[in-house]
């Protein structure tokens, strides 16, 4: 047991990869392609159970991380395998391990060909995602960040819809371009650290300490460039307007499990990266450029909602709603207040749960009818009452109805933004964000109305079967979380509070003289806006 808790994060990262090998071995020796899902399910559930151990108490290091492990990897360039979790990443890790069994179960009958390969990629993806949320060495972080592309590329490309090749290649190149620029920034940071202290480092904690001790000082221009390189990589991943164009394609073409993982976890890598690395490593630059990100986030919220409204395809509609929701998350983060950032973090989890559930539900109906066009449906309420009820419930959670999870996150985000001093007129931003909530209600409810209410117009829909036990079992934990996170958010928020406050302090302590100047600058930007 000690061994497990000592190396918990490493086990969590490597277990799925090991599972992938076992799935391959299973296929090689038994040649039962179809059974791969059982082997996979075993590993992902085991990983989820193990990840719950993170919630237990464990010594917290001086840098604020627990379950830390720091082993030298490539000495020539002083890079270490350094992992650890804090309040910021712990929920994202658990979200990942939690979503995986659901994703696997969602594909129980949906995968029609090459099962083994499908599950191998799924498991490799889990390893990469967990690596991203736990690594504290920038080079190792980059490694996992980039490695997560490959399995997803194959998942979309082999098991995707008609336009899958275009979507897969676009997804890969967009995200790769952003992250490669981040790699340059990471190496540059290494040398800045080397010239400041004599020893270069990729270690996040080392870099942070060196900055806090005033040794590593990023002069205005350099800091801004590095910040932008990091932020670009993450903005593409989030995706922030105008880098969002890969998302609707990838989401629409991906198989259900792919969409669920993409929405629930992959997008969070972007927002997580901004909060973890951009804010703490480049606080001045974050302040300086906050106005840009706030404006882009607001555009994303409104643009995403408007475009979602006119989508004829349900899955594409949900994909655009993701753009809007992630805009909310970015907005909350860049408020630089505790409430705003807590709200953003909470909203990240909410989005994972609600949008993940929406993609699942779309997947269910797609398996029955093999179409996602809204016009093909209508009046499903009378044919599939349980499905309808669950769908509407999930929609409410996505819209942010009080007592459901979405409300807590959006409320905190807006409160945070209202108090924010990051820009001169935060209430304007808050107001625009508020309209986004209304728009969200419009496009989702309108879609619900067209799909579920009225008379059954399409004869093909008359004999659709309602949800079966497997599907109900899949969606039930998500529904439970929507209510639980809506009425009792404190366990989540309490666990993350310390880390978020630390980031917030780091952002604002540095303030002093520099921030005043920056504010004056942003005012001019805002007034011009």
């Amino acid at each position, binding site marked *: 047991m000690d061994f497990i808790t000592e190396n918990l994060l490493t086990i969590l990262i490597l277990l799925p990869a090991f599972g992938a090998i076992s799935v391959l071995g299973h296929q090689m020796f038994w040649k039962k392609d179809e059974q791969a899902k059982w082997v996979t399910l075993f590993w992902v559930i085991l990983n989820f159970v193990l990840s719950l151990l993170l919630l237990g108490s464990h010594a917290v290091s001086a840098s604020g991380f627990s379950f830390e492990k720091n082993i030298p990897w490539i000495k020539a360039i002083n890079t270490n395998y350094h992992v650890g979790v804090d309040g910021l990443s712990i929920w994202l890790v658990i979200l990942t391990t939690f979503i995986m069994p659901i994703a696997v179960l969602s594909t129980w009958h949906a995968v029609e060909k090459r099962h083994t390969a499908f599950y191998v990629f799924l498991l490799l993806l889990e390893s990469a995602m967990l690596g991203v949320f736990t690594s504290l060495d920038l080079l190792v972080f980059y490694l996992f960040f980039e490695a997560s592309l490959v399995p997803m590329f194959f998942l979309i*490309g082999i098991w995707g819809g008609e336009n899958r090749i275009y979507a897969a*290649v676009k997804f890969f190149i967009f995200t790769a371009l952003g992250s490669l*620029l981040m790699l340059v920034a990471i190496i540059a940071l290494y040398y800045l650290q080397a010239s400041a202290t004599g020893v270069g480092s990729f270690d996040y904690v080392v870099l942070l300490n060196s900055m806090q001790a005033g040794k590593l000082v990023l002069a205005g221009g350099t800091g801004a460039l590095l910040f932008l390189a990091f932020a670009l990589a993450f903005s593409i991943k989030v995706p922030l307007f105008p880098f969002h164009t890969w998302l609707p394609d990838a989401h629409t073409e991906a198989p259900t499990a792919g969409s669920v993982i993409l929405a629930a976890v992959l997008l969070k890598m972007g927002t997580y990266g901004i909060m973890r690395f951009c804010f703490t490593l480049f606080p001045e630059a974050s302040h300086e450029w906050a106005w840009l990100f706030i404006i882009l986030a607001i555009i994303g919220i409104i643009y995403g909602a408007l475009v979602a409204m006119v989508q004829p395809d349900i899955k594409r509609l949900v994909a655009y709603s993701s753009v809007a929701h992630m805009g909310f998350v970015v907005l909350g983060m860049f408020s630089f207040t505790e409430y705003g950032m807590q709200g953003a973090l909470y909203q990240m989890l909410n989005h994972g749960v609600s949008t993940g559930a929406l993609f699942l539900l779309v997947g269910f109906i797609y398996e029955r009818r093999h179409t996602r066009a809204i016009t093909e449906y209508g009046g499903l309420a009378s044919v599939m009452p349980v499905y309808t009820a669950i769908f509407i419930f999930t929609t409410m959670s996505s819209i942010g109805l009080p007592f459901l999870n979405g409300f807590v996150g959006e409320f905190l985000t807006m409160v945070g933004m209202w108090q924010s001093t990051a820009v001169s007129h935060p209430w304007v931003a808050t107001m625009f964000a508020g309209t986004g909530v209304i728009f969200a209600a419009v496009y989702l409810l309108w879609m619900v109305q067209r799909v579920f209410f009225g008379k059954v117009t399409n004869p093909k829909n008359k004999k659709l079967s309602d949800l079966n036990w497997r599907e109900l079992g899949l969606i039930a934990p998500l529904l439970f979380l929507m209510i639980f996170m809506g009425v009792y958010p404190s366990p989540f928020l309490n666990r993350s509070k310390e880390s978020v406050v630390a980031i917030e302090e780091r952002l604002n302590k540095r303030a002093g003289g520099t921030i005043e100047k920056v504010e004056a600058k942003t005012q001019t930007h805002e007034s011009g806006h």
Partner: protein
Amino acid sequence: MNTILLQNLVTPNVSLQAVLPEMIVAFTGIIVMIYDSFMPKQRMVTGALSLIGLAASAFALFSMWGEAPASSWNGMIANDGLRMSFTLVFLFVSAMTILISTVWTERENVPIGEYHALLLFATFGMMFMAAGNDMVIIFLGLETLSIATYVMAGLRKSDLKSNESAMKYFILGSFASAFLLYGMALIYGATASTNITQIASMVGKANFPALLLIGGAMLIIGFGFKVATVPFHVWTPDVYEGAPTPVTGFMAAGPKASAFASFLRVFVIGFPLVSGAQASAFLHESWVTALTVMAILTMTVGNISAIVQNNVKRMLAYSSISHAGYAMVGFIGAGVAKTMQDRDEAIAAVAFYMLTYAVTNLGAFAIVTLIAQKNDRRTEFDDYNGIGFKSPVLAFSLSLFMLSLLGLPLTAGFMGKVLVFRPALEAGSTLLTVMVVIAVVNTAISAYYYLRLIVVMFFRERTTSWLEPKVSGALAAVLIITILGVFYFGIFSDNVIEKFSGKPSVQSAQIK
């Protein structure tokens, strides 16, 4: 009187031990040639002999690795990190090429003994290019290599494309050699020496700085041709496409690396920045700027041209051009390094890059050779349609090599890129930083055509019949070695980098 004469007389510093690895390869080549003339067409025997020779040479090389950096043969042969690490790359490339060629020599009627002998002579030439600390030695090595490869490119005598390839390579190659030689002559005129160490000490006080500049420019043209940098790259696609596939793999990995080795030695070590000497500062700045522009062009043109190719060999040819561009980033980093140690590390980074490229590229070419079938018929992208799940092992291996060429983490290509970008960023100059940014943008562009092969193999369905090629023992060995190599250099690169940069260059050892 007598004593003065004796003092002026330079005692030849003959140390056969200093060139033992080279000698072993040369003798093996001669033995293979003689054996073949008495008992022709015994590919197993000549192949095995060659492999044994290469292994023995590698053994000799490793035993020399621990020795202190020095030069022998009156300063003509260097025994330093640059030579050691690059020579290791050459030996590896040759051994892999012999194994890959088994497939091809079996199904086509190739004079096999001669092929093995030529390959060994080419290797010998490459080794001298890396070992030569004197421009004359470098030129000798280069010519030995070139003549052998001209013949190898045209080995498929009945094939028009192969003939065209050999002819083009020969004519343009000779032209480039002439430039190189003329450049060397001019440098000699300015510094009164062909020895790199002496040139380095003379650049600051050269009599005719203009001669240095013109000579340097000539050398850039000559080496630029051999390395295939834009704008001296035009021969590459035709020659690579026409040459037999294993030879193409060899040319992209071996001779390119050897040209880099002497290019590095002549410019980084021979034309350093001597403080307080205006002529050397001007020369240094000129070549760094010229090479930076060339690196940027090479990466960009190579990548953009690769995108539109429909032939896999041609695509790999253009990809090899762009990789020369990435390697040059490290080269320039070595050129602007502030300390001797940084410079040696940057040189080691370029050598490591060539090693990772060789491992990946040879793996890819092994599979391309296998799929190409007789007469290199199947080398179009369409021939790879939908083979992903029909020959999963081959297809996934090829995908791995593509991802490594692309530079994805955990593969050799990633570590190679990180290491060559590092020294250029360390310099902190705007121009070099811009170059690195362009390099990564190019990497993203290159994703398109590397992924295309994966897309074709896995995301499309096959419409025509597919005969799974038989993987012979030799080829299986190549695949296992290269796949393990890709992961080893990607994950456990620490040992290799340490080994490569552990031995400084002769010059920095002297300063210490």
